[in-house]
């Protein structure tokens, strides 16, 4: 499959290079731009077929793209990626930040015409958190009072901190002030659900013709692994501002095929492209190549209980010896950003970086060798490490091999690579079998906590098994304070502690990459990489 991709890629590049010389410039835009704009039909590509359209059960990004169009929670995401009022027209927060009262709009309806009430939210949330539903996102309700206990089946569903005051008022009680709560509510697992449909149809309720939704679009047609077509929902409360009539999502996992479909004019927006294609894509497509910082990070985790990674000096040395700029510039074509901290930078948070981040490479390497010497490793007794990763794209493998080479060259470390299939790797990492391993994370909401909590003792995703009482108390303090500025400053202290203890080696921050036709308006690109179709339009600039 790897060979397959490189072959098809080589052919594509070759042909793109040939075709470029004999086609008029701008032909990539196509003469049909005006026609496309007039069609009112947006064609988007997603990386895989939706696994389910049930908001309680969906977990993958491609499905989230669809659910962002089909359902709407109390709040929603606007074009810039900010929280905007959704079904809730307004809300109040109690002084202690623990009680939220949401006022639902009176004109919100289901796609079948039924009025949308607070009860629909209560039903939807309770269904998702109920262990009987077996939702992987039940844990997302942890910020709600008793959320964690209800998800784990230790308390009844009725104990969830949620109260229907009247048809248009919903009161939510939280276990601790959660400043990112409004953002959390934009996710589809916090959608309202239409109880009569689910009761009547059972697992068939998400089929075309059955699915009753409340978002800007309704499901028209669905072929698994084939096209999914959505049509504008005329009963959506803000239908007047929904400018695209039909949206088709094409699941395509092969990056070369995605680019080919875009170039052929079959698709208006792709969800990515091959890193290696960036040069000729930029040259041929110009501004149609869209890059934006994305709230995610790639790290190498180290199991802090397993020798030699139980030595802080070893972990620090391995981290210092990685030349991130070289990796990003030479291997990743500058598409990602070198990472020294653990929280990707975004407006509202400036990360705490280790002091050595600004040092020259020579100085860093020298210090790293000193640290290794302190830990008892030298040329005669070289450090031996095994880097575990999954069978993955050639891009990632090249990256890991480069890191291994840097360790060999800069520190004299002996590195072996341990590659396994994705599901096997995940399982082995979960049971602590790997000492040094690939660890990537995408934030669930726009707040440093989504990354820092990865290193909390109790967190199931704390694969390094990092446990620091000081770090725990800082996180606890940040979670309980209602003061936003103070919260951010505590997060910076916590991040600085991670820099020092180095349970993981940050490598790079993600950037989202898309190909977007010039006639698709409203595509701003945002740090969560969520672009619901209702924020877009076809044709020249209105706003």
């Amino acid at each position, binding site marked *: 499959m790897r060979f397959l991709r490189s072959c098809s890629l080589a052919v594509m590049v070759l042909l793109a290079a040939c075709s470029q010389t004999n086609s008029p410039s701008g032909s990539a835009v196509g003469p049909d731009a005006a026609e496309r704009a007039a069609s009112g039909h947006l064609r988007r590509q997603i990386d895989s077929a939706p696994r389910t359209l049930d908001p309680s059960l969906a977990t993958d990004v491609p499905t989230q793209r669809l659910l962002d169009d089909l359902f709407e929670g109390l709040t929603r995401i606007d074009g810039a990626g900010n929280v905007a009022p959704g079904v809730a027209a307004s809300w109040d927060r109690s002084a202690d930040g623990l009680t939220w009262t949401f006022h639902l709009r009176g004109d919100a309806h289901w796609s079948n015409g039924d009025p949308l009430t607070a009860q629909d939210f209560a039903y939807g949330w309770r269904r998702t958190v109920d262990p009987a539903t077996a939702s992987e996102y039940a844990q997302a309700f942890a910020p709600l009072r008793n959320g964690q206990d209800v998800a784990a089946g230790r308390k009844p569903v009725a104990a969830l901190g949620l109260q229907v005051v009247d048809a248009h008022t919903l009161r939510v009680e939280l276990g601790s002030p959660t400043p990112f709560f409004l953002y959390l509510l934009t996710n589809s697992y916090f959608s309202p659900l239409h109880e009569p449909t689910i009761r009547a149809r059972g697992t068939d309720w998400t089929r075309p013709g059955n699915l009753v939704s409340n978002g800007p679009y309704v499901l028209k047609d669905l072929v698994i692994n084939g096209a999914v077509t959505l049509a504008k929902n005329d009963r959506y409360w803000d239908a007047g501002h929904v400018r695209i009539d039909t949206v088709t999502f094409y699941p395509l996992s092969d990056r070369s095929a995605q680019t080919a479909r875009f170039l052929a004019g079959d698709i208006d927006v792709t969800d990515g492209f091959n890193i290696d294609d960036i040069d000729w894509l930029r040259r041929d497509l110009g501004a149609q190549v869209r890059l934006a910082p994305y709230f995610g990070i790639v790290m190498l985790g180290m199991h802090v209980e397993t020798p030699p990674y139980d030595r802080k000096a070893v972990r620090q040395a391995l981290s210092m010896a990685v030349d991130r700029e070289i990796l990003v510039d030479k291997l990743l074509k500058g598409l990602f950003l070198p990472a020294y901290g653990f929280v990707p930078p975004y407006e509202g948070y400036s990360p705490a970086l280790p002091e050595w981040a600004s040092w020259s490479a020579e100085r860093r390497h020298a210090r790293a060798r000193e640290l290794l010497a302190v830990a008892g490793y030298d040329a005669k007794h070289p450090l031996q490490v095994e880097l575990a990763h999954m069978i993955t794209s050639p891009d990632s493998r090249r990256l890991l091999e480069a890191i291994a080479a840097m360790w060999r060259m800069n520190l004299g470390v002996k590195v072996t690579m341990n590659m396994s*299939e994705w599901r096997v790797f995940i399982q082995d990492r979960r049971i602590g079998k790997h000492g040094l391993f690939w660890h990537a994370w995408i934030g669930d909401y726009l707040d440093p906590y989504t990354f820092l909590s990865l290193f909390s003792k109790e967190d199931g995703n704390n694969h390094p098994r990092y446990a620091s009482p000081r770090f725990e108390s800082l996180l606890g303090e940040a979670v309980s304070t209602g003061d936003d500025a103070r919260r951010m400053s505590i997060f910076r202290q916590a991040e600085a502690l991670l820099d020092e203890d180095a349970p993981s080696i940050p490598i790079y921050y993600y950037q989202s990459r898309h190909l977007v036709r010039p006639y698709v308006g409203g595509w701003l690109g945002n740090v969560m990489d969520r672009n619901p179709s209702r924020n877009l339009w076809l044709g020249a600039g209105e706003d």
Partner: protein
Amino acid sequence: MGAFLLRRLLTAIPTLFVIVTLGFLLLHAAPGGPFDGEKAMLPEIRASIEAAYHLEEPLPLQYLRYLGQLARGDFGPSFQYRDTSVNELIAQGLPIDLTIGGLALLLALLMGIPLGVVAAAKRDTVWDRIGVAFSLLGISIPVYVTAPVLVLVFAVGLRWLPAGDWGGGAWRNLVLPVVALSLPYIAYVARILRASLADVLHAPYIRTARAKGLPWRTVILRHALKPALLPLVSFLGPAAVGVITGSIVIETTFGLPGIGRFFVDGAFNRDYTLVMGVTVLYGVLIVAANLVADICYAWLDPRVRLE
């Protein structure tokens, strides 16, 4: 003939049983579970998900449960497509593979047989050389090269045809995947037929026919072609299944919602029921294709009797 069919169908049952058992064991022996995701789950939630799919039961019990389901023709719910059953996925994907694969096979025969006949009849002429060169290219250039090239030329460059998508089975959407899938099979058919026809043409009865003054065309089409088709038939049995069960490369390149992608994605995602369902389906198809090939054999070769 009836007794033959019945006997073959009865021997198919233990064959399928072995396929099911081996598939089930291999799949469950593979490390990593269907719900091991990037994000960790609370142990309680993991337990409730596994209980929903009976994964917490001992393996022999799961196996018996599966056999019971299978006997009722129920492949069970898919693990990765959580609100869809495997029966539905197969019902959706199979017609697509049958269409693409059937057309590709038809094209392979329509192109490959004449090419093979011409090459054999005009041996060592320029026609033969062209045929041999074409079939060599068709066999040695893999589909994952030809398919993207076809897309680049006819979809990206000339914009005559769409670069992918099923499009409800519209002919425009079918052309590129069918052609790409059939190219190597055209080559195989041509090569096999050229070789076997060349052999047959040396047989004494062909010389007799020629001596009687029959024209070449009649000799080849009437007397030589039928026996020369025998090796082709034994090739076509399994090949038909290969073509019809879809090429994962074709499905991925053209974004077609066929079974091949389900099978591969299912294996990677430990979607036990989906992989088992497709395995059983493939098993049935192979048994059926071999049966059809045997029947064709008897029809083509009077020395073979179906007893």
